[in-house]
C-alpha cells in the first residue's frame, strides 16, 4: 500500500452564488433571470502515488493549482471529485506565519502555534528553550509578537515548525526564510527532517532545488496535470523549455 495516493482529484471553486453576492442581489438576479454561478476548477483529475521516503516536487506557474492541491492532501479541503488516501501523521507547513496573534507575546505564540501543529504540552515545555535558541530570539520572549521584525517572525515560525516528525510532510515554499545565515541553518534543518524518512511534498519555483532533492515530479498547469513522473531531470528540462517559451502546451 502506498503511503499517499491521490486518485483523479478535482477541486472546484464556485463564485457568484447567493452566498457570494448576498441575498438581495440573489433575489434581484433571480427575478431578472440573469443569475448564474461560475465554476472554476482549481485542479482537474490529478493523480499520483507516493511511497515511503519519496519526495515529490510540484512545479507550475502561478495559479496552477499547487497550493489548492496541497490543502486537499493535508485534509484541510475535501476534493470535489476523486479521493485521497493518506497513511500516518500529516504535517502541512503551508504558510508559516498563520495562526500567530500580534497581541500575544512570543512565548504565548510559540505555545499556541505548537499546539496547532499537534505537539503536546510536555513536548513544548521540553523544547521551548531550543526553539528560542534556534530562532535567536533570546531577550524577546515577553515582547508582543507584532513588535518583532518580519525576519524575526518567520524565524520563530520556522523554528517551531521544524520540530515536526511526521510521516507525510508538506512544504509550500518554506525552505528559504530569514537572512543568509539563518537560511543556511534552516535548509540544513529541513533536510534533516526529509532525510529522517518522511514522505515529502515540496512546492517550489526553484528548479535546481527540485532537481537536486526530489525523486518524483508533478507538473501542473492551470489545474491540469501535465505530467507525473520519476524522470525529474527530463520533466524539469521540459518545464524550463516551457518557461523560456521554447515549448507550448
Amino acid at each position, binding site marked *: 500500500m502506498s503511503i499517499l495516493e491521490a486518485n483523479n482529484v478535482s477541486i472546484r*471553486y464556485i463564485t457568484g452564488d447567493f452566498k457570494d453576492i448576498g*441575498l438581495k442581489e440573489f433575489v434581484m438576479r433571480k427575478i431578472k433571470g440573469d443569475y448564474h454561478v461560475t465554476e472554476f476548477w482549481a485542479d482537474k483529475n490529478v493523480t499520483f502515488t507516493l511511497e515511503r521516503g519519496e519526495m515529490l516536487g510540484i512545479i507550475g506557474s502561478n495559479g496552477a493549482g499547487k497550493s489548492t492541491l496541497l490543502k486537499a492532501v*493535508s485534509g484541510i479541503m475535501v476534493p470535489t471529485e476523486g479521493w485521497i488516501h493518506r497513511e500516518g501523521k500529516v504535517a502541512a507547513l503551508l*504558510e508559516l506565519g498563520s495562526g500567530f*496573534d500580534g497581541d500575544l507575546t512570543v512565548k504565548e505564540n510559540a505555545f*499556541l502555534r505548537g*499546539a*496547532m501543529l499537534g505537539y503536546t504540552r510536555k513536548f513544548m515545555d521540553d523544547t521551548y528553550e531550543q526553539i528560542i535558541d534556534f530562532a535567536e530570539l533570546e531577550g524577546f520572549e515577553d515582547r508582543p509578537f507584532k513588535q518583532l521584525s518580519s525576519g524575526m517572525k518567520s524565524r520563530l515560525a520556522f523554528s517551531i515548525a521544524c520540530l515536526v516528525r511526521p510521516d507525510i510532510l508538506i512544504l509550500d515554499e518554506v525552505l528559504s526564510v530569514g537572512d543568509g545565515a539563518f537560511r543556511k541553518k534552516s535548509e540544513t534543518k529541513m533536510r534533516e527532517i526529509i532525510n529522517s524518512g518522511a514522505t515529502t511534498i515540496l512546492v517550489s519555483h526553484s528548479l535546481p532545488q527540485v532537481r537536486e532533492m526530489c525523486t518524483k515530479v508533478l507538473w501542473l498547469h492551470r489545474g491540469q496535470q501535465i505530467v507525473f513522473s520519476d524522470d525529474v531531470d527530463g520533466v524539469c528540462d521540459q518545464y524550463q523549455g516551457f518557461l523560456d517559451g521554447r515549448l507550448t502546451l
Partner: protein
Amino acid sequence: MLRIFKEHQFLFEELVKRDFKKKYKRTILGMAWSILSPLLMLLVMRLVFTQFFGSNTPHYTTYLFCGNLVFSFFSDSTSQGMSSLLDNAGIFTKVNVPKYLFLFSKNVQCLINFGLTLCVFFVFCILDGITFTWRFIFLFYPICCLTVINIGVGLILSALFVFFRDMQYLWRVCIQILMYVSAIFYTVDKYDATIQRLFLVNPVYVIIKYFRVIVIDGSMLSPAFHLLMAAEAFIAFGIGAWMYKKYNHQFLYYV
C-alpha cells in the same frame, strides 16, 4: 469523540488562554469589567423600573438580577460565538483543526465570566435578605442547559455568519427583541394563560424562571419543566451540530 478531545486538548487550552488574554488587553480595569458591566446594567434597571414593577414584586432587585444574569450570559456567549469561526479563518484555512474548537473556547471564556457574575449575584442575594436553601444546588441544572443552548445557538450563528455577514446586524436586533420578551424587568402574571405558556418557547425565559423559582420562591419546578429545558437545549445543539457537520468543508470557500 474522547480521542479527538484528547488529541486537541492542548490546542484548546491555548485557544482559551488566548481569548482570555485578548479580551481585556489594554483595559485598565481588566477582569473587573465582567462584574462591573452587569452591575451597572442592574443599577439602571433598578432605578428606572422600580417605580413601575418594584412595589408588587417581592425581592425586586434579585428578580431583576436573575433576569440580567441569565440574559447577559446568553447574549455575550452567542454574540461573541458568532464571529469566532470567521475570526479564526487564518488558522483553519492553513491548519487542519476541528472548527468547533474556536466556538468552544469562546464559550468557556463566557462561562467563566458568568461564574464571576454569579458570585456577585449571591452576595446581592444575601443583601436582599434571601434565605439560602439546599435547593440552590439545583441551579446547576439550568446553568448546564443554558451552556448547551449557548453552544448550540453559537454553532448555528457562527456557521451562518460565514455565509451571510448580515447575521451580525440581524442578531443584534434579535437579541434586542429577546430582551423584551424574556420578562427581565416585568412579571408575566398579568397575561392570560395562553400567552404565559407562549413565553415558555423562549429558552432564555425558561432559564430565568427556573432561577427565580429556586432563589426567590425557594421552591421547585415540575419534572415536565425540567424536560422542557432539556428538550430546548437538545434542539439548539442538534441543529448547530448538524450544520457544522454538513458545512464543515464548505466554510473555507467563503472566508
